[in-house]
């Protein structure tokens, strides 16, 4: 299953044949920008809190609701919230929390859902039936309400939020993966593997996973956005990330009351969510093209004039 995790990173960080991937990325300006934005978000989430110290939690009720300006140093650049905390520092602090909710939730549902789905689709019969009915059960609960109930019963800690958001999304991967596996298992190469006595998991891993992967990854990127928004909706309903922790979703939810009077509190974290998810989607679309031999040539289409012939030959070679 580790291949599932390595792959999206691998295409960006390019462990095997770096020049080619970097060149391809350079050809697609939007994908390049998206990669840079995502890189910045990651960097911010990792290094930001170290630089800012306690600026994200330091309150000053006399500095409440200051608009963005250059008058109060770096921390005052994007204004302050109602408690006089620096919005910039909170955005940075929130990046870490947001990613540490969204990424585990997406990865967890991706791995578990895909594994069960492919297993069910590959074997068919009763195993498939049971897996699909479990998916039906989860899907039949409105996920937001399920989250609210569960988080009232158990405390709304980050781990619980991750778990419940992941649980709600498992059926999506399960169904997608099952459909792919069910179709692939009758194909010649899978049949051949089975005939030669290969066990089921190696077959799934070697023959089904690589083909199902692009679709699953696309769903995962869309889900990245879904998870962030769900986390925000939970905060809107008062049951999301709990202070003093802060996430972008919580900032948008808490800031909504100030939309008329202090726009920066709700709008800036909203922009952060939009930028991150749009970048992730663009990059995922690019990765999907770049990893699909039948589609890869599209990346070489001229978005700029220079060097198109060389890359074309190199890629199609």
């Amino acid at each position, binding site marked *: 299953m580790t291949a599932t995790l390595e792959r999206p990173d691998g295409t960006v960080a390019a462990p095997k044949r770096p020049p080619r991937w970097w060149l391809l990325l350079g050809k697609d300006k939007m994908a390049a920008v998206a990669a840079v934005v995502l890189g910045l978000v990651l960097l911010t989430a990792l290094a930001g809190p170290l630089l800012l110290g306690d600026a994200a939690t330091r309150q000053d009720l006399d500095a409440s609701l200051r608009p963005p300006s250059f008058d109060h140093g770096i921390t005052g650049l994007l204004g302050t919230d109602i408690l006089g905390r620096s919005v910039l520092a909170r955005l940075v602090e929130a990046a870490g929390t947001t990613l540490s909710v969204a990424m585990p939730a997406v990865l967890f549902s991706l791995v578990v859902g895909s594994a069960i789905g492919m297993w069910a689709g590959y074997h068919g019969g009763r195993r498939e039936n049971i897996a699909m009915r479990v998916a039906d059960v989860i899907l039949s609960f409105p996920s937001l309400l399920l989250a609210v109930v569960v988080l009232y019963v158990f405390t709304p800690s980050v781990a619980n939020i991750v778990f419940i958001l992941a649980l709600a999304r498992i059926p999506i991967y399960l169904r997608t993966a099952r459909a792919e596996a069910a179709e692939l298992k009758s194909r010649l190469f899978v049949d051949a593997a089975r005939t030669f006595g290969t066990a089921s998991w190696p077959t799934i891993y070697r023959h089904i996973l690589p083909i199902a992967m692009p679709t699953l990854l696309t769903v995962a990127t869309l889900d990245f956005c879904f998870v962030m928004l769900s986390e925000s909706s939970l905060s809107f309903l*008062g049951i999301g990330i709990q*202070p003093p922790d802060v996430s972008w979703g919580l900032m948008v939810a808490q800031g909504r009351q100030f939309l008329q*009077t202090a726009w920066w509190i709700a709008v800036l974290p909203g922009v952060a969510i939009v930028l991150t998810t749009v970048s992730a989607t663009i990059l995922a679309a690019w990765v999907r093209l770049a990893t699909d031999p039948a589609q890869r040539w599209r990346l070489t289409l001229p978005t700029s004039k220079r060097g198109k012939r060389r890359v074309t030959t190199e890629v199609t070679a």
Partner: protein
Amino acid sequence: MLSSVPTRRRTRALTALLAAALLPASACAVANSDGAGDAGAADGSTLRIVLAQEPPTLEPCESSLTSTGVVVRSNISEPLIERDPTTGELDPLLATGWRQTSPTTWTFDIRSGVRFHSGAPFTAEDAAFSIDRAVNSDLACNVDGYVFEDEKLGVEATSPTSLTVTTVEPDPILPLRLSFVEIVPRGTSTEAKVREPVGTGPYAIAGWQTGVSITLHRNENYWGEQPAFPVVRYVWRSESSVRAAMIAKGEADLSTGLDPEDATEENSIAYPNNETTALRLDGTQAPLDDIRVRKAIGLVIDRQAIARTLFDGLGEPAAQLVPDGVVGYNPALQAQAPDHEAARALIEQARADGVPLDREITLVARNDQFPRVAETAEALQYQLAQLGLNVRILMTDTAAHLQYQLRPFPENVGPVALLIMHGNQAGDAAFTTSQYLVSDGPQSTFGTPELDARIDDAERLSGQARQDAFAAVLADQNETVAQYAYLAHMRGLLGIGDSVEYEPNPATGDELRLAAVRPAKGQGR
């Protein structure tokens, strides 16, 4: 993929199937097209009010619940006596007079010539029935618990215009308590609560479209002065900004509970709403069982800054649980600026005595308790952290908050600092002390026998002696018990459009008297 040809017809069939499934659903709309919005047209004959939530019921014996009382009280049904929310005086309503005829007996003169909406005449029998129903029945009415503390009353109609009420113990404020009992006609169910009651009030229920609106029509046979608006319509929106938008747009004339950031001078009026916010410190759990720690918390909270910033200047820093105007309010107790040095000194003493100061304290607050409650909790957490205390915030919904608020308290949850908002609707400190201060009070975590005794004595007194005794009780609590670290006496914001005139009073949030709302002058309505 399949070859595309054979599926062509099927795709068409599929499209038709989908369309067939979707269209009937959208053909019959919930929206009926009178083009005027939920609250009705701005035609001058309808008063349109937007509430924060739909009343769960209009049962009169539940009217001490804010969301029910704000519609029912003195509009649909009326009590025998009403309390003037500004002066605290008791005024006659369905009773024309009352007197204490023995230490445990009160006699009430019942108004004649009053009819219920159903047309039935109102007599002392109905009054006796209503009191019996609210207080002595198995309905478990909120009024019963809140106002009477399950004291059982003997009620008898001695003639159609005379009623006697007897209590077990002498009760000097029985008329005040009875001002919470709304009168319903005999025949109203005593087995179940009624959703749409009949009363004697200036308005009768004309319709309740669940989830959408409640419509009241003027009672043309009302015994008193006719109110200005023939029709009143209530709608509800949970977002304050939407309520404010409805006022701004002219879709509603009045709105309860606006948040400060949605309010402007044109669209709202601030009024003291009798609510007081405070932290209730659980004195049974370390480190909060040490009075020095509790006092240090009281000293370190910057209630001035919280009131100024988080409550937008609408709160007045508090040093006791009841606001000015309530019997027992102690004018000598005034909120002080935070004193960090004194607080730290107390904490150091406690630390030296081995009090476990690093034990995690849970600060419990309720979503939507008051505007900016989450931010207030964060401010408190920050200020207590400066004292070296380890505080965790737990935001809950109403049900979970009640578990922390009421006896029996949850066990094994460690030390709890509960953010409470106490509204003394009745105007007498006895309603506060019996709940929040006595050792075994339903909302009190602990107390002292000495304070209990003083409260017991104060409850038997009346007049100036009562005022002085309760004022002393409140001062004593701060000195010897310190169960509460106060925040502020709150003020509410009433959204008001320019088409109506209304002067809010301290009771407006609990009881919005429609008869007091008039069309604005110069509106030609």
